[in-house]
């Protein structure tokens, strides 16, 4: 299940949904809004998504993870809209019989989501400037 959310993410409820009597391991990743990026003080973030394609591509990432790793279930929720420092921006959870697959799949999913899913981050800096991040800019 891949979802975009305009409201705070309930991580505990999401982890609960991954439960299964055959699952001995659950690994979660939470991406939190940091107070700085590349040396600049960050006040808040704005996330924009092309929702139709973001959900389709996000579901594709999860399906690929299920095929690639021995997992029981996998899910991801990404916030859109304005987020303050400390807020949960993205949550990934994976349950599996054994921990190795859960760690590997969770890490792979967040890497792929960041690489492929059409969601963009606008950083609002303490000095009043802001800017969209388009990572291969560099």
């Amino acid at each position, binding site marked *: 299940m891949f979802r975009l959310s305009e409201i705070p993410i309930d991580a505990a409820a999401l982890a609960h949904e991954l439960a299964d009597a055959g699952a001995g391991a659950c690994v979660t990743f939470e991406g939190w809004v940091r107070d700085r990026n590349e040396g600049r003080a960050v006040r808040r973030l704005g996330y924009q998504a092309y929702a139709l394609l973001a959900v389709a591509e996000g579901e594709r990432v999860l399906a690929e993870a299920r095929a690639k790793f021995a997992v029981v279930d996998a899910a991801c929720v990404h916030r859109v809209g304005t987020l303050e420092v400390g807020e949960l*921006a993205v949550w990934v959870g994976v349950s599996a019989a054994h921990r190795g697959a859960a760690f590997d799949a969770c890490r792979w999913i967040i890497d792929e989501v*960041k690489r*492929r*899913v059409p*969601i963009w981050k606008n950083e609002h800096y303490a000095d009043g400037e802001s800017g969209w991040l388009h990572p291969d800019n560099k």
Partner: protein
Amino acid sequence: MNYRVLYFASLRDRAGIDAEQVESRAGDARGLYAELRLRHGFSMTEERLRVAINGAFAPWEQPLHDGDEVVFIPPVSGG
């Protein structure tokens, strides 16, 4: 032909609009983007963008049909 174009992130800021209907003779996304770069002054080159047509990633040279929804996807930064 008539296309619906959506803009996101820095393209949206530059165009100053979220979406527009575009009347164009371009038969594919490559031609359409060339037109829109001129119109809106986008600095981003084609090499840095992906294309989505009707909600699915598509090649630049895929023929466009009247009424298609076309989106130029700048490098993503979710997470």
